[in-house]
């Protein structure tokens, strides 16, 4: 009985809180926003390092505008789009261990199997990943999974916001995720197998190639926002919550 009373009062309280929330939202009641708040944990943005993060954001922005963008534009002018797209697929194919391990860590055996099938198929018939016959011919779609998602999957909160130099939006958990994924990226081991400069070259080439395919994206973001720093921070957390939710949905 007591428990029932508690439950009823909780429901009532949450109803009151909901009504209150609707009111402070300018009376606009979005039933789906409430629905998604139930489905995923409420996103609490914590940014104790905002000053430092904003400075890093400014640095990244200038690095992009002054160095990366002109370089990518020149590169885009010289290298035709199909080649750049093929290279992008190739860089993605190399990172197979990242997806394999994280699919397995999340208990997605099917995902891991599909990724393995894709890797074998695209590395051979796909000429080292330059083409994607696995998706085009065999309907094997990529099963993306990363370490930040895995940590979130096991209930580890994202923690505070972090803008990483050159890498952009991240979080306390995201930094670990990045380190974990980096350790599983075979290109990292080029510095052991060959020389360090080769690894820098490959990583730099990957960034340049990716940027050349997405040149307009950052510009659209900057033109379409009033505070690009907040816009990126808000979108980062929301997107990561969605990714963790997606990880749970697949297992179900």
């Amino acid at each position, binding site marked *: 009985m007591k428990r029932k009373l508690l439950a009823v009062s909780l429901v009532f309280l949450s109803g009151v809180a909901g009504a209150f929330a609707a*009111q*402070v*939202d*300018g*009376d*606009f009641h*979005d*039933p*789906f*926003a409430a629905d998604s708040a139930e489905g995923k944990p409420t996103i609490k*943005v914590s940014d104790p390092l905002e000053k430092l993060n904003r400075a890093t954001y400014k640095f990244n922005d200038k690095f992009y505008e002054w160095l990366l963008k002109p370089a990518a534009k020149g590169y885009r002018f010289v290298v035709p789009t199909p080649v750049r*797209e093929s290279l992008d697929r190739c860089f993605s194919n190399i990172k197979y261990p990242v997806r394999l391990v994280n699919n397995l860590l999340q208990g997605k055996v099917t995902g891991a199997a599909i990724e393995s099938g894709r890797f074998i198929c695209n590395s051979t018939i796909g000429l080292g990943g330059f083409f*994607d016959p696995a*998706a*085009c011919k065999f309907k094997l779609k990529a099963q993306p999974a990363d370490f930040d998602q895995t940590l979130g999957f096991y209930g580890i909160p994202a923690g505070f916001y972090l803008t990483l130099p050159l890498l952009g939006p991240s979080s306390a958990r995201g930094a670990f995720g990045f380190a974990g994924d980096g350790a599983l990226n075979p290109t990292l081991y080029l510095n052991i197998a060959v020389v360090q400069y080769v690894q820098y070259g490959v990583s730099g080439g990957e960034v340049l190639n990716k940027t050349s395919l997405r040149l*307009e994206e950052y510009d*659209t973001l900057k*033109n*379409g*926002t*009033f*505070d690009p720093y*907040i*816009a990126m*921070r*808000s*979108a980062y957390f*929301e*997107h990561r*919550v*969605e*990714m963790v*939710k997606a990880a749970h949905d697949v297992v179900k």
Partner: protein
Amino acid sequence: MEMYPNLPILSMRLFTMKPVVLLFAGFFALTVALPAMAGVPTDEMKSTTDHILTLLSNPALQGVDKKPERVRMVKTEMEGRFAWNDCARACLGKHWSKRTPEEQKEFIVLFSGFLKDTYADKIATFYDNVAKIDYKGEKTMEGFASVKSVIVSKENVEHPVEYRLEKSTGGTTWQVYDVLIEGVSLIKNYRDQFDGIIARSSYEGLLKDLKSRTK
């Protein structure tokens, strides 16, 4: 010869089975049709996006120099499909009720103008890269609807896009008040930005910025 006597029985059986078969066939057709059977919100979204894509594929409208024309066209199509008032209101969040009705009206005009400019420009730039749009079902409740779609690019990259709609005041059409791209809500994103700007500067500061961006 031996089979002959069996024939009427066979046909009898077939006859009696027919309604059962039909019933089952109908049932299966129904269960197959159900997930594909989209509701009105999906139909309306689909007709708008299809219409925009058809208009933009006009050979006379291709190329960078024809972009202003494409932008104008998309803006016209967007006009009636969005619930601009509620979208602007939700983006201002808790600051909405602190503004006078005149200020609210001004904000709706400026912000919806900005949204139309931004998104029409985006659509008029990237329409060429859309291979297809799949609709993944809808949910409706109390005059609101959510339509989930996936935009597939020509490089075969999937972009999940969810539209949140409400019945227009007259109740004749469904209008979009929020768009979620890969789970990121337009309303939430602008609300966080506006909240931050108003906290750091003021509503007037935000308005100044907004005015400087609308043509």
